[in-house]
Structures are given as C-alpha cells and as structure tokens.
C-alpha cells in the first residue's frame, strides 16, 4: 500500500527559543515552570502590559548577562533614571547580546 498525503492541516504552537537548557527536549518543558519576564511577570509567550499582540509585535531581548525580558519592558526600565542602565536582575551594566541565529 502506498499512502499519499494530499493535504495535511497541522497545528503547532510557537515558543521563544530562549536557549535555556532543556528547551530542546520536547517532553521536559511541558511541565516545566513557565518562563516569565522578570519585569512584568508575564510569560514570554504572552505580551508585555503595553502590547496587545504577542509574538513578533512584542519580542524579547537578551542581555549578555543571560537574562531575558520583553523588549518593551526592558526599554522602559532603561529609560528610567533609577535604572542606571543596569540589568534589573543582577545590576550589571545592560549589554544587549548578539543573538546567534543558528542553534
């Protein structure tokens, strides 16, 4: 018997590739605690308080200190005087990391 797929309508959901360990393992992260933005405490896959659409409209930003935030949240933080251009998690100077495009 030969099976030919004429049309397959499949469903998938997207996740940010945060590069966290275990991210590649399909089953491990089902139950793992959801990653949330350290500033707004909303899941990375959700959107920051000022956005309405998740995903490309509300992207993430990676710091060299390995911390990840919603970009909008972090920019807002950096714009305040008290931030002193530091990462809100570890108070190191914020340097946006180059994202490696390939895994």
């Amino acid at each position: 018997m030969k099976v030919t797929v004429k049309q397959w309508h499949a469903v998938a959901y997207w996740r940010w590739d945060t590069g966290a360990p275990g991210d590649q393992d399909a089953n491990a992260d089902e139950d793992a605690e959801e990653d949330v933005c350290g500033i707004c405490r909303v899941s990375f896959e959700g959107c920051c308080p000022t956005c309405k659409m998740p995903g490309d409209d509300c992207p993430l930003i990676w710091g060299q200190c390995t911390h990840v935030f919603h970009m909008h949240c972090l920019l807002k933080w950096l714009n305040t005087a008290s931030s002193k251009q530091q990462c809100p998690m570890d108070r190191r100077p914020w340097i946006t990391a180059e994202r490696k495009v390939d895994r």
Partner: protein
Amino acid sequence: MKHARGEFIALFRARWLACLPPSFTLGLRLFLRTTLQTLSAHEKLFHILVQLGISERFDKTFIDVMYDELEQKILDSCPGIWREPRLEMIRKAAKELEERWLSAVYGHRFSRTENNDWFKNAMMMVTGRLDHFISRTLVELRTSEIFDIVVDFPDTLPAIQDLRVCCPFLFPLSWLPGSLVTRVNQRILQPAADTDDIITFYVSLIRCLRIIDPQGVILHKVAPPIRKYLRDRPDAVRCIVKRMTDENESFMQEGEQVVPIQQVHEAYDDYTDPHWLPEPVDAGADFRTTRPMDIVSTLVSIYDTQDLFIKELQHLLAGRLLAVRNSPLDDEIRNVEMLKMRFGEAPLQVCAVMLKDMSDSRRTNTHLHGEQSHPLYTTVISRLFWPTIQPVPLKMPGQFKELQDGFEAEFHKFKPDKSLKWVPQLGAVSLNLELEDRVVEVEATPIQAGVIELFSERDTWDLEQLMQKLGGIDRVLVQSALDFWIGEGVVKNEGSRYILLEKAEAAKGVSQRPPPVDEAPRVDERDKQQAEQMKIYWQFIQGMLTNLSSLPIDRIQAMLKFAPGYNRSVQELAVFLESARKEGLVVFTNGAWKLEKK
C-alpha cells in the same frame, strides 16, 4: 280617546309582559338570531314586536343578539389563524351588522332622514360597546393561544399586531402572564426541550411582547422563570454563543442598535427623554424601567458575568478556526468585530490574537512553500491565547515526521527566535491510499493517518505495537482509529491482530461503520479542564471542612461563592464531592460532608 288608547296599550303590555316566564329572554335571543340572515323578510315581525312592547322591554336582548353574532363570528374565523390580520375584518363586519340590525329593529319607527341625529347617537353608543366587546373576545381568544402564537413568531406577526391594537382598550392584561407562564412551564421548561428551542422561544417572546406591551410589564412577569431555567442549563451558554456568531441567525432586527453590554447593568434614568412614561400601574414592586436592550444583551444578562461567554466564544472560535482550511477568515473577523462592540475590546483580545495567529500562519506558509501547494499547512498558534490543549504524546510516523521536520527547519530559518511545538492530535489529513485493487480517498484525523501510515510499512500489527510506535498514546485513541479503518474496509481485525486488506473483502464492516468521533476529544478536554479548576477549590473545601468539621452542601456552596472565579452550580459541586468521596477523601453523614480522618 287617544288617552284611553294609550292607557289600554300600557295596561295590556304590563299584564301581558308580566306573564312571560324568565326563560323567554333566552328564547327570544335565539329566535332573533335566526332572523339575522334574512332581515328584510321580517320587516313585519319587528313591527309586531314593537307593537307588543317587546322591543322596548327586552332592548338589552336585542343588543345581546349582536354580541352573540359577533362572538360566533370571531370563534368561526379567528382561532388558529394568526398569519393574517383579523381585527379589521371583524370590526367591519360589526359595523355592517350593527347598521343592518339597528335599522331593521328600531329604524322603521324613525325615518332615517328625519331623525338622523338620534340614529347616529344611538349607533355611536352601541358601536363603542361593540368594539370593546370585540377587543375583549379577541384578546381572550388570543391569550389562550398566545403560546403557539409566540412559537410561530414572526409568521404570526399579524395576530400580534391585532393584539396590540386591542390591548390598550383593556385595563391590565392581568391574565396574559398567568396563562403564558403555565404554558411555558408545561411546554418549554422541560428536560425534553432542546436548549436551542428554549432560546428561540425566549427571543420570540421578547419580540412579541415588545410589540404588545412596549413598557415590558408582561415580559417582566413572564421572563424570570425562563431565565432561571436557562441559567441552570449547562449548554445554554454554548447555544447562545453559537447563535450569536452564526451568520444565518439574526438576533438583530432591522434598525436595532448594538448596545455595549457594560451599560446594561447601570441604572436607567434618562431625565431628558421626552417620551418618558411613569411606571405602569400594573407593574410589580420590583419592576424597573430597563434600558431598551437588544436581544443579545438580554440573553447575556441572564448570567451575572460575561466571562462565561468570552470563554465559550474562545472555545467556539478555536474550533472553527482550526476547522477552516484555506477559506477566507472574513466572516470570523467580522464576527469578532461585532462582538467587540458588545463586550468591549479588552475581553475579546484573545479572539483578536487567535485571528492574527491565523493570518500570520497563512503568511508563514506562503512564505515557506511559495505559491505552489504543499501537502503540509501548519497553523502556528500563540499557546496562551487559545483554549488549553491537553497534550497527547502522539508521535507521527514515517512521511508525516519528515513533513514536520522539514517544516520545523524552514520555520526556524524564517523566524530564528522561535521554535515550534507540534500539537499533533489536532488538524485533519486528506489521504490517498493506493491498494492493490483500489484507491481509497479519505479524510482522517492525524491519529488515524498515523495508524494507516504504519500499515504501509508492514501489513500486520497488534494494538500494543501501534501504541508504542505512535509515542505511547492512549489505547482508546488507537482503538478508535483502527475502528475507523475497519469501517473504511482497509483494515480487518483477527483476534488481537489487525491486518491490512490489500484486496477488498466482502464489505461487511462498511455497514457498521462507527460514528465519527471527532467531537469527542474536545468535550473530553473541557471536562478535564473543569476538573483541573475544581482542584483549586478542593483546597478551599478542605480548609473549611478542617475548621468547621462538617458542613451541608449548601453551606459549602455559599462559602465557595466567596472564592474568586467560582461559578459552579450546587449540582456540579455535588458531583465533585461524590467523586471525592469515592476517592476516600470525604465522608457523607447526616446530610453533611466531613473530611475522612486519616
């Protein structure tokens, strides 16, 4: 001389009339009815009746004859006829009858030309009374039929309009609510009635009563039982939402305005309204002039919160979006826009995200595959904005896996920041199976497709092997997929083994093809989700039973109501407690629930 004659006549009449038995009235009435058809032939008769003083003495009976005749006419021509207006016709008939009858009975005494005024005055008085009589009789008749009239609305609009014309003549329509409520209880608020039908009836009822009684007094009396009943029906929300978004169904009438629902709950006091009316005298104590609501707002206001609707909408939309293939989304987008006008922007944000996911997916797929058609079309969804999907550990075998991997790699190139997680159990596959002697074209679920893909590797499998190959999914799922293929006549069952039929066998399985099971998993998911949510409340229950030792179910329910987001009915709570009892967590004694002592 003339005086003596007058005295004689008076005496004669007094004596003679006194002899008549009481039953004479009835006899006369019936007799007079028979003359109605051939009035002109009885001119002499009426002359005699006048001479005998009967016309004068029994004038009431003479009028009653008209009432009888009209009642007969109404009963002959109106019951069950709702699709055309009747009132005008009857009024016309009444007018004609009245003219004929009065001129025949009394008219001869006064030549019409001379005493025109007297005749007109007499007519006017009688006309008014007759009209009132017609209205009352017709309203009584229609009241007894009101239930069926409402059921057939809007075809019965003429009957309703007749009623509206009649009603203002009659002081409180006190009997309408009573008879309606009884009928509604008997016919509609029954377990056997379809929720959809109840809603249809309620909608028709609102529309009918709005015509008859614009201030809504009757509706205010009739609606509460229906609303209460609908609230207790678990599938009512689903039905309402389904119809709200169904394009063939219109809850909106011409010229109706969409009213944002938030406003509905505010007190309605429009002091600038020039059409303001005081509360009707027959209104109940708790009657409130309500803001004019459209049907949807009325239906939504059955429930205390809109959350139920939003959640249901989300589910419905999810189901629909994942079912449409490549058809345009315009309808759904328009629907959501419409609903935004009602519920406000914020609650429907999830739906907007869902729609955006759909259009983004379309763009992604076109980008990845170009314009030429590719077997795999993937909808990429934003997980947090869709209804919770219970993970199924399905692993697609063979060429499906290749398609998935190919897509995933391309997607990663397109959106380097994102990775994909498949929800393999959702979606649909159209397949072509080339067997030795035939080609089978079929629409299948991914699980069914996975199963048949494995059969293309090997002809014989048993259930355990299939389960294992598909990533360890539930036995029931594999079983039902196999049943599907047995039904299609592609696979047969021999003992514990399943064998591929390269050559078709006498199709005995086809007739017993199992019913499609597509819907089932969704329902399952809902139940599971509800159970999940109930777990949170279990902690509350545990807490209160620890502190207060034992509680009847009503108290538990009352206290749980303080918990945020708790919206279960007592019945659902009872089911939950019962299952907790089976697990040995609680015991039920003397009508109260207690924690099982460890």
